[in-house]
């Protein structure tokens, strides 16, 4: 049926990036379970999965009350020792019965929410990612669950909380179904984004990896835009502009690695987003702008030095 999830992304609350062993510690939510780490082309650490039991109303654009019982899978990730994420998803499945079964039944199907009674996948999808959809009382709240997982990382005692700049978290809400391939990424408010994905073949966690990878890059782009806007190029003295841009150079620019962790079969989705809206194109033009500003500033400093030196 339908898979839906949320990814929250933010700047890791530490003065500098953290090392791979530190990532392992921060994400080791429970002893004995391993943090999965990949090193190339960028260090990426992923916590073990956690389950949250839910008996809730599912979102529905029509406003009908659809009951679902099961578990949500959540996890946290740190990319490049610098970007933190909380991520949750659920797979919907039709229940064999129309009443709630013992929890052992649901625990045997981690990450599945069984839908009691009649429901259309399109109605639920639209209720979840559609704009202005009604929010019923007791509705599945992936935002709360996912936010708490990101909090787990951000409040780790291993972090010093002296982040180099302030930046809002972004929230990516996504739905995925099997079918004719298509992808639609939409920006809503400053912090909210939605993604509708139709992929060939059955759902696998690789789809979640794709969503998380997109979320990291959307957050990087959003943040770099904010840093450049705050620098007020042209309206403030060059030295100040340079000072305001430098956190981006120190902490963000090297993190851009689109599709680094995306399974081969799903890379065409990234490629299509690269054509439109053109993530990397916008990123490159921003990076060039930042580098140009710094170069101009450096040149000005050099010529000022040369002048005073010549005197």
């Amino acid at each position, binding site marked *: 049926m339908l898979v839906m999830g949320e990814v929250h992304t933010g700047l890791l609350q530490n003065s500098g990036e953290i090392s791979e062993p530190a990532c392992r510690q921060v994400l080791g939510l429970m002893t004995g379970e391993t943090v999965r780490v990949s090193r190339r082309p960028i260090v990426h650490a992923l916590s073990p999965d956690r389950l949250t039991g839910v008996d809730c109303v599912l979102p529905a654009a029509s406003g009908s009350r659809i009951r679902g019982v099961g578990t949500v899978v959540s996890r946290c990730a740190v990319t490049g020792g610098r970007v933190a994420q909380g991520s949750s998803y659920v797979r919907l499945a039709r229940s064999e019965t129309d009443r709630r079964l013992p929890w052992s039944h649901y625990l045997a199907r981690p990450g599945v929410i069984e839908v009691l009674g009649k429901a259309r996948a399109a109605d639920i999808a639209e209720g979840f990612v559609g704009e202005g959809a009604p929010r019923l009382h007791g509705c599945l*709240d992936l*935002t*709360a669950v996912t936010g708490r997982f990101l*909090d787990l990382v951000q*409040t780790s005692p291993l*972090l010093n*909380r002296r982040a180099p700049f302030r930046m809002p*978290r972004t929230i990516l809400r996504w739905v995925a179904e099997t079918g004719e391939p298509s992808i639609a990424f939409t920006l809503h408010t400053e912090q909210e984004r939605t993604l509708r994905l139709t992929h060939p073949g059955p759902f696998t966690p690789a789809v979640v990896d794709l969503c998380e990878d997109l979320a990291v890059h959307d957050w990087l782009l959003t943040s770099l835009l904010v840093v450049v806007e705050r620098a007020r190029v042209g309206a403030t003295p060059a030295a100040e502009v340079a000072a305001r841009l430098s956190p981006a150079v120190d902490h963000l620019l090297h993190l851009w690695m689109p599709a680094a962790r995306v399974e081969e079969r799903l890379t065409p989705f990234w490629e299509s987003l690269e054509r439109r809206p053109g993530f990397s194109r916008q990123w490159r033009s921003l990076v060039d702008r930042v580098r140009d500003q710094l170069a101009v500033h450096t040149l000005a400093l050099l010529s000022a030095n040369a002048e005073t030196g010549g005197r």
Partner: protein
Amino acid sequence: MLVFAISDKGGTGRSVTGTNIAYRHALQGNDVCYLDFDFGSPTAGAIFSVGSVARGTRESGLHEYLRGDCPQPRRVDVWAESDREGLRTRPPGAGRLVLLPGSEGGGELSALSEEVVGRCVQLFGRLEEEFDLCMVDVSAGRSFTAELVLAATVRMPAVPFRWLVFHRWTRQHIIAADGLVTGTDGLFDVGTRFGHDPEVLRDRIRFVRTAVLEPDAAELVGLRDEQRAWLSACDSELRELAGRHGVGRTTMLGKVPLDPVLQWREQLITDEDVLASKIANVETAAAFDDLAKKIVDDNAWEGL
């Protein structure tokens, strides 16, 4: 940075001064949010001139959030939602200015539970990720709200916080402000009980004098010599009293002069009020501007 605004008595100018400091800090290019924790009288909406939340919000106010009745508290973008023309566009170079209003008719917190403290910690932690300054109007006197933020900040040792104690420049107010900090069940007392280091806490508290009438102020020009001499004597007596109560110059972060506009209306003092319509005094705006710099200036907070 979390900054908690408190006063012993109501009506001291805590909310008006706190909001003006927040506003000036945003104008200085920082992202700022203002949390109205004065649950008994949430007036921040009125001061920011956001009519829809003038007396708090009916939905998703801070009180509701802390009680667990809504997942996240409502946010009001002052630059977008203020009714005052002069506030409705974000000035170039200014940071974000976001108000988290209290709940309309919410009432004071009546108890402190583990859940409430947990939600408060979550709220402060997330806002601190996002904003350079989170100014929290804690309400007047000894309250569960003050205990709540003392309990919350103990649990987030890496998050920097400071306290501002607002008081008027009178005998009663000076003695009361000292009592609120050092007296029984005062900030030190409760803070230490909750696990704060008293030395550290002491260094994070500063006093702010509100609505001060300086003996040489322009308002006093028409006074008789006898009256002026009397005022001057009072002022030095108060200074001596303040010194004895630890509310003196060394622990003072700044003072705000009495302003005719603020005496008549609770509002933000914009540069337009000072320069164009000239209804407010330039010294008032300068005092807010100065305080907005000093709250984050470590030199002003060095150990005593």
